[in-house]
């Protein structure tokens, strides 16, 4: 059983050669691989190769209690774990007919937006790094760390918060927490001009990113593109507004769009989204002190908790796009079937293959990163 990396080396026609992007390659996001066939500088065909991060989540979840799965779900998308937790919790709550207390819903919105900011900061760094500029990565990840600090204080974990639980959230806000959120928001806002100077008005970066991996709105819809990548083609669709969950219908925010559909537009959309998230967080911080009550609806002993039979499809807007869980219960204490629809499942496979074909070698990495594909969502 020889690894195929070595098998196919001598196969391509003589005027082409095969290049492996990944799994061990800095131009690939996470542990993922893209095999490209190159003619000169141009990619003639690209094949995505996943499964390096495959853990069989859906199978594992069938073997664990409803509550035990809360520790499992954030692992499905490491850079942006909160939507995973919330989406799973929403599904379980809908199946069990559990009414989530208002305070918990607002806390969830706060986490979701913090997580979105963290993911976007990560994204900027990654996108810039594919073009050889590492400073935004250093800045972005450092600033993201402040959000992780907030998460750590809230949930006890920096990356895997495991903080949302069917019924609500696991702990109330620590004293003085919202002030610290506010302070971090101030700081992030003060940093935005720096990012603009360094990245978003950088002539070389604009030059590098413009026109790369461009798709039209029709193509995007045909390929099942969602989230910021879809909005970068001009369609103002956001699950938060158009299929609202939690308390998003009580919040005031815009849906940024760009028309070009290229890597640059995708970066700009995320930049604007980050600002919108800051705006949402301001509203949450203002509102949350006035919302009292429980943080969790009473749930039965988790060791003996059957959910009524049924199925439910819940969707949330993650930083990558439309995240959905299809959960089936057969009335037991464990899920009968969970299907995770990660947004990257589309982006990292067929969209990436389409966009990479015909692109130049130097742009392949940028295309992947600008789609903000998250391989664990594909592999699950």
């Amino acid at each position, binding site marked *: 059983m020889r690894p195929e990396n*070595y098998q196919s080396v001598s196969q391509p026609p003589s005027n082409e050669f095969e290049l492996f992007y990944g799994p061990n390659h*800095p131009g690939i996001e996470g542990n993922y691989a893209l095999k490209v066939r190159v003619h000169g500088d141009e990619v003639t065909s690209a094949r995505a190769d996943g499964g*390096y991060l495959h853990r069989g989540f859906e*199978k594992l979840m069938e073997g664990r209690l409803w509550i035990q799965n809360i520790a499992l779900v954030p692992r499905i998308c490491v850079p942006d774990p909160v939507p995973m937790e919330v989406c799973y919790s929403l599904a379980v709550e809908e199946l069990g007919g559990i009414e989530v207390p208002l305070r918990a819903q607002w806390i969830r919105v706060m986490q979701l937006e913090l997580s979105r900011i963290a993911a976007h900061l990560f994204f900027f760094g990654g996108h810039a790094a594919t073009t050889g500029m590492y400073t935004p990565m250093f800045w972005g*990840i450092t600033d993201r760390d402040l959000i*992780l600090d907030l998460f750590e204080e809230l949930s006890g974990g920096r990356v895997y918060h495991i903080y949302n639980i069917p019924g609500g959230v696991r702990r109330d806000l620590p004293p003085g927490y919202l002030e610290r959120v506010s302070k971090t928001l101030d700081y992030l806002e003060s940093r935005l001009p720096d990012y603009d100077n360094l990245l978003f008005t950088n002539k070389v970066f604009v030059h590098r990113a413009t026109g790369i991996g461009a798709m039209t709105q029709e193509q995007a819809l045909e390929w099942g593109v969602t989230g910021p990548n879809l909005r970068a083609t001009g369609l103002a669709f956001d699950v938060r507004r158009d299929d609202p969950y939690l308390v998003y219908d009580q919040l005031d925010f815009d849906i940024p769009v760009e028309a070009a559909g290229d890597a640059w537009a995708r970066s700009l959309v995320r930049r604007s989204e980050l600002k919108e998230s800051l705006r949402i967080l301001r509203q949450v911080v203002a509102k949350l002190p006035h919302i009292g009550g429980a943080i969790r609806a009473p749930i039965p002993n988790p060791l003996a908790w059957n959910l009524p039979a049924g199925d439910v499809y819940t969707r949330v807007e993650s930083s990558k796009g439309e995240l959905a869980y299809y959960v089936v219960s057969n009335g037991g204490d464990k899920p009968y079937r969970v299907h995770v629809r990660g947004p990257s499942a589309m982006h990292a496979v067929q969209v990436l293959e389409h966009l990479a074909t015909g692109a130049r070698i130097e742009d392949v990495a940028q295309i992947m990163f600008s789609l903000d594909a998250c391989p664990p969502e594909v592999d699950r």
Partner: protein
Amino acid sequence: MSTLQSIPVVATKAEKPSGGTGNLLANVFDELTAFCRSRSLFMLHYCTGCGAIELPPAMTSRFDMERLGIQPMVTPRQADILLVTGYVSTKTLKRIILTYEQMNSPKYVIGICSCTVNGGMYWQSYATAKVLADYMPVDMYIAGCMPRPEAVISGLRELMANIRAGRSDNWRDYYRRYDHYLGNQQRLFGENWQTPTDVIGEARHYGQFGPETLGEHTALLERHQTPLLPFEMRLGLGGEKTGVENKGDKR
């Protein structure tokens, strides 16, 4: 893995000339290399699992690994440390073994997160390997799921101290007990598993040959191994493909 106890503790500072034969210059030189090795660690930029998400913070400004002389490197040839950040799926494990064999010694493997020790939270998963140390020698484990950047840095500093003291020598173990590791690999990947690296040849060449280098599993390897085709260079220079050394040649 049950055989853990039987792993001999590799002799410390095996390279050092013993006793009075060593001259001062050689000692100074050894000290210098040990010091430099510990102060300059290139880690392979390979995100094998979810623990990789805490490496960017550890590398970037807030925790700045570079002040310890640690920096990410892109290819296994350049790297000293292989960070196995969490669970390894079977598919990834093959790549990790290839990667590990391509690295130049002394090389160090760091197992981060629970998953590298005993399967972690994916212990029921059909897709992941459970005990990393079965497949390659591990020099340092860092506990956590996932460990914070500070913990990663603490682990790296611990490793640096070990290297400085000449203790982290598990890479020799891979040569000396290749049969053991290969056996575990074969168990997981099937008996016709082979890598393009000639570990046995390297072991002979670098004087790392041990009594357990060869065994039943390497015999199996020889039986199943298909010669890897040399990569044809169209410039007409000849030569071999990345890291591929035809195993038959050196025997």
